[in-house]
């Protein structure tokens, strides 16, 4: 069973109650109970998820459509790490998303890191917008390490990033740079490219 952290559970209950306002209290109680026993995607059923909740889900979903090389960092590790570098904009959403999930038999963990050097142990690296200033440094330190870099920094894919979140109205979309990914030994699946807003195929750095 999915175990929610106390803050998650509270959020859920609050949400559910606010949804049931105007309805009978019994219904609200059932919804609360339901939330407590942890039906997945219960949030999605009731309210439009926030931007970063969507992004957290996408972050996890990307890993489903990416193939890491056999000799990557991940083969030595016993977990599949999704790291956030800099200020964590997801709050508990990322933890909630990856909890109990596994990829290739490894449990998925969400990590917050501050040093770019720590990123080499991650499979997916989200570079927070707080790191805009040292983006180049971060990407350089990663080199050709097999890490899927994701960010919502503008022009991220033009600066050597792989996946960049874009807001299209109130919809979260993304664009990818398949050449950069290829250089890092990652293969982006055509399914992923299909839903990307834009696919860049040049691996040049620059501003």
């Amino acid at each position, binding site marked *: 069973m999915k175990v929610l952290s106390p803050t998650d559970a509270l959020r859920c209950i609050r949400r559910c109650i606010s949804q049931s306002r105007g309805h009978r209290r019994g219904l609200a109680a059932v919804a609360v109970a339901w939330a407590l026993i942890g039906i997945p995607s219960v949030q999605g059923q009731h309210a439009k998820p926030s931007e970063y909740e969507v992004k957290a889900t996408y972050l996890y979903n990307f890993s489903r459509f990416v193939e890491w090389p056999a000799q990557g960092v991940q083969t030595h590790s016993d977990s599949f790490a999704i790291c956030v570098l800099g200020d964590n904009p997801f709050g508990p959403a990322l933890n909630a998303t990856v909890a109990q999930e596994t990829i290739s038999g490894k449990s998925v963990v969400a990590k917050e890191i501050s040093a770019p050097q720590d990123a080499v142990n991650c499979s997916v690296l989200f570079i927070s917008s707080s790191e805009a200033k040292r983006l180049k440094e971060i990407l350089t330190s990663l080199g050709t390490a097999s890490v899927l870099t994701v960010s919502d920094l503008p022009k991220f894919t033009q600066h050597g990033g792989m996946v960049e979140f874009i807001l299209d109205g109130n*919809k979260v979309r993304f664009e990818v740079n398949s050449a950069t990914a290829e250089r890092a030994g990652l293969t982006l699946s055509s*399914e992923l490219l299909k839903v990307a807003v834009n696919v860049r195929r040049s691996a040049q750095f620059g501003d």
Partner: protein
Amino acid sequence: MFSLRDCSIPSKLTWMNMLVSGTALLLAGTGLFAYDLYSFRVGTVRDLGIQAQIIGSNSISAVLFDDSRSAETTLSALQAAPHVMSAEIYTPDGAAFAGYRRDRSESPPPPPAIPVGQAEIYRFQSGQVALVRSITFHGKPVATVYMRSDLGAMHARERDFAIIVATVFLMSLLAAMWMSSSTRQSIAEPIVCLAQTAQIVLNEKNYSVRAPANDGRNEIGLLISTFNEMLAQIQERDAALGKARDHLEQQVQERTAQLNVANADLEAFSYSVSHDLRAPLRHIAGFSRILSEEYGSKMEPEAQRHLNRILDGVKKMSGLIEDLLKLAQIGRKELVRVNTDLNSLLKDVVVDLQPECRGRQIDWQIGNLSSVECDAGLIKQVFANLISNALKYSRRREVTLIEVGQVEKDGASVIFVRDNGAGFDERYADKLFGVFQRLHRAEDFEGTGVGLSTVQRIIKKHGGEIWAKGEVNKGATFFFALAANRRGHAQTRKAATGGY
């Protein structure tokens, strides 16, 4: 109503062939049709399921990254599948994500829910099949694909199948008809020929015809040869029978001729004997009378008594000879048949018999008799004989009752003469009509024993019959029928055909 039973064998064979092949074909066609429909349905569902799975698989990233446009691009590929009416992708929470409609104005009914533990469900309803398939990605449900396909392909297939079956059915019926014409030659025609031959044999009683032989060594060939064999046997037997009959006829003719000769000899003999006996008897009578008249007074009473006895004997013998002559004459005489009124004939007889009635009280009960074709003289003798007999045997009664009448029996007229006299024992009825046969002693009732014999001869000569009924002391009744046309009376017929 059309009945197969009365059909001729050729058409029966044709019908049978057509019926059998038609039934087999219909059954096979129905079975194939049912199987084809079934497998087509299964195939339709399977294909739809595969399509749903392909669409679902291709839309996983679109669903996961909320890109309904991409999903709709995938769905639009269904334009190539003309039978797909609509396809919808739903997110796991039941919200419609993307859709495709062949006919944009149509709105599909809500999808049926997938039962827990199943990946797919389908429903056939109102000419379409609806299928819902759950799409999983890494063990988690990510989308539900709901597709509807019309069954136009199935209906087209049904129609094609029906046309093919009907065509094959008709063609096989024609083939069966054509083939039965060839079986007709080997089965039906010999039988028809046989039946015609049998008909000829039956109608013409001609046993020399033969059914045309069949060279096949089968049951029909055997039947025909057996039939012909039977005809041959019948023919042989007929010939033997004919020969035997001819021989018998010849024998009968010979015997009859011999018998006639013997009869004639006998009659001639008895006639001449009787005739010739009369002359010496007359001498005896004449000289005895002379002896009695001229020398009677000189004779001793004893001698006179002897002489009288001689005279009595002569008289008796003379009567006997007269009777025998009459009997013999009947045989020699030809019948002269004329229409005779029996009433007047009977009246004459009664008048003639008046001397015998003198001094007696007689109750005559004479009914009305008809006219018949007969020899009047002989029939008069019959009546005279029977009535004189009746008078004779009833003379000891205080009142004699003599009844003559006519009754109808088995369509013929029977005349009877009844008296209330001495009667007779019916056990000896057959002896009544024998020559010299008497049932009473001469001491009681005199007689020669020739009278009834004469009567019987006359009746038989007329082709008739005579019989008697009686009881000792309770009278006797003599019946006779003249007409030979007493149909249904076996005895009479026998007498009529077997008579003279």
